[in-house]
């Protein structure tokens, strides 16, 4: 009988016996060690489950931020890429990624079993399941960071290949080195919820992608030997803002869930520092954009929130609330400077600022643990550099191959027309009149 039928019985109970307690709530529980473990397990499962749901919801945030900060003619395409990062990512992490990340270690470099969550002989599979769940959404997060930096010019099928490779290989290897107990972990590298492990991995892959891909047409215009940097404004700032709020919300699952236990009083400080660093990031980015450009820039301030969040992610449990504001503000300043330098100096075209938010502020956050949180700064540097090197090399190879086989970039004609029409044969804003002269 379905458990929901309890109400029926309750009523029957009321009628015949008067005030019987409800089945669902009154089941006898023996008062012993087992019960204690049951409660502890339940608190852990609930906490990780909700954390995983929140992190998965961050996909919506990424999708909205990236859509909002790019042009209307590519909106459907960027959404497809985000959707497939999540969908293909979860499946690949199930089949391969998890095994590489947490399987029996080969020399501290990568794992080698647990593929397809096959653990013959294990009974308490719920413990594997809940942990996989929480880890899988992190893999999907690392994957989805890249789509923004490569937006408006990447072929969909090429992007699919990338999605698969990062969730099956690039990210899990980084994960194995660290959370999987590999060599970086043994050095004492500390990264609570993944400033480097998740965000920098995504951010550096985005950097490699943006470089190999080249800028959007019309972004850097050469005339008379001089290059002028043009703005290609996003088409929907309210949507981008919504995305940022969704990410902020989801980040409580990202950082909060990373206690990996619901019975951990660190949850309190993690929430406080996560909230305050985000606030600091917004204030920092707004202020600097005001100083530099004469007006407080909306999309930069939104990036500032994310910068603050990425910045605190490595040490939300060990950085004091007051310092977390400082970490956030610095991240907010960094993201503005980094966007400026990448755009105006290096002419790396990152439509949404993903490299600056996730790559640069991810590195900053990892170092911040050393500075404000008592971690060994040198080991943190080693971790940042190692992840940078691994990701850049593998991502360059990946995108290089895709480029060579002509699966990376759409044609100029397709880019002009917009990827919604050329890649998916549709328009995202049917009926709206949109100026398409860019």
């Amino acid at each position, binding site marked *: 009988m379905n458990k929901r039928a309890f109400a029926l019985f309750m009523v029957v109970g009321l009628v015949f016996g008067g005030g019987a307690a409800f089945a669902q709530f009154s089941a006898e529980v023996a008062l012993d060690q087992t019960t204690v473990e049951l409660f502890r397990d339940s608190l852990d499962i609930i906490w990780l489950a909700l954390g995983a749901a929140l992190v998965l919801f961050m996909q919506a945030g990424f999708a909205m931020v990236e859509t909002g900060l790019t042009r209307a003619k590519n909106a459907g395409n960027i959404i497809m890429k985000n959707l497939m990062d999540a969908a293909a990512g979860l499946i690949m992490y199930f089949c391969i990624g998890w095994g590489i990340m947490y399987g029996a270690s080969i020399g501290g470099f990568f794992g080698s079993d647990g593929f397809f969550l096959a653990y013959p002989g294990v009974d308490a599979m719920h413990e594997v399941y809940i942990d996989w769940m929480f880890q899988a959404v992190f893999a999907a997060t690392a994957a989805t960071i890249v789509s923004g930096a490569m937006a408006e010019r990447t072929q969909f099928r090429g992007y699919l290949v990338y999605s698969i490779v990062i969730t099956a290989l690039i990210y899990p290897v980084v994960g194995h080195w660290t959370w999987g107990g590999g060599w970086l972990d043994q050095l004492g590298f500390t990264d609570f919820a993944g400033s480097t492990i998740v965000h920098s991995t995504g951010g550096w892959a985005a950097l490699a992608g943006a470089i190999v891909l080249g800028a959007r047409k019309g972004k850097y215009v050469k005339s008379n030997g001089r290059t002028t940097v043009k703005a290609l404004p996003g088409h929907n700032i309210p949507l981008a803002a919504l995305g940022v709020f969704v990410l902020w919300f989801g980040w409580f699952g990202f950082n909060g869930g990373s206690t990996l236990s619901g019975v951990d009083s660190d949850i309190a400080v993690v929430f406080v520092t996560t909230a305050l660093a985000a606030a600091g990031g917004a204030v920092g980015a707004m202020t600097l954009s005001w100083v530099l450009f004469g*007006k407080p*820039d909306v*999309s930069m301030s939104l990036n500032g929130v994310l910068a603050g969040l990425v910045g605190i992610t490595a040490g939300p449990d060990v950085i004091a609330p007051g310092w977390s504001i400082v970490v956030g503000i610095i991240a907010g300043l960094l993201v503005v400077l980094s*966007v400026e330098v990448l755009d105006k100096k290096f002419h790396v075209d990152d439509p949404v600022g993903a490299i600056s938010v996730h790559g640069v502020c991810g590195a900053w956050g990892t170092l911040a643990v050393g500075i404000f949180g008592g971690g060994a700064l040198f080991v943190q540097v080693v971790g940042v550099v190692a992840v940078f090197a691994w990701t850049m090399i593998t991502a360059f190879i990946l995108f290089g191959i895709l480029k060579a086989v002509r699966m990376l970039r759409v044609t100029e004609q397709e880019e002009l027309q917009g990827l919604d029409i050329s890649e998916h044969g549709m328009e995202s804003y049917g009926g709206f009149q949109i100026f398409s002269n860019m």
Partner: protein
Amino acid sequence: MKLITAYIQPHRLTSVKEELFKAEVFRMSVTNALGCGRQKGYTESYRGVVTEVNLLKKTRIDIGVNDEFVDKTVDAIIRGARTGEIGDGKIFITPLEECIRIRSGERGAEAIG
């Protein structure tokens, strides 16, 4: 018959319409346009990149009128649209050879009103 086309500041549309109604001109078509004229644009800055915006939002009004209505209409538009500042806009008058009411097939002077 003439076709009168005016480019005005968008926020003057309401007062232009009022003046036209007072002048008993009840028919018109309105589109929005971007204009480039004497009025200097402004700069926008998006993520730190400064852009010159010199196509400014304007509203375009098209009115087909009989010859005797031309002056009345032009004056009404001017009354409604003038602020005395650069950007107030322009009125163009082109010859209109024929006007046909689709519903009835009427042509010319009767059709226009």
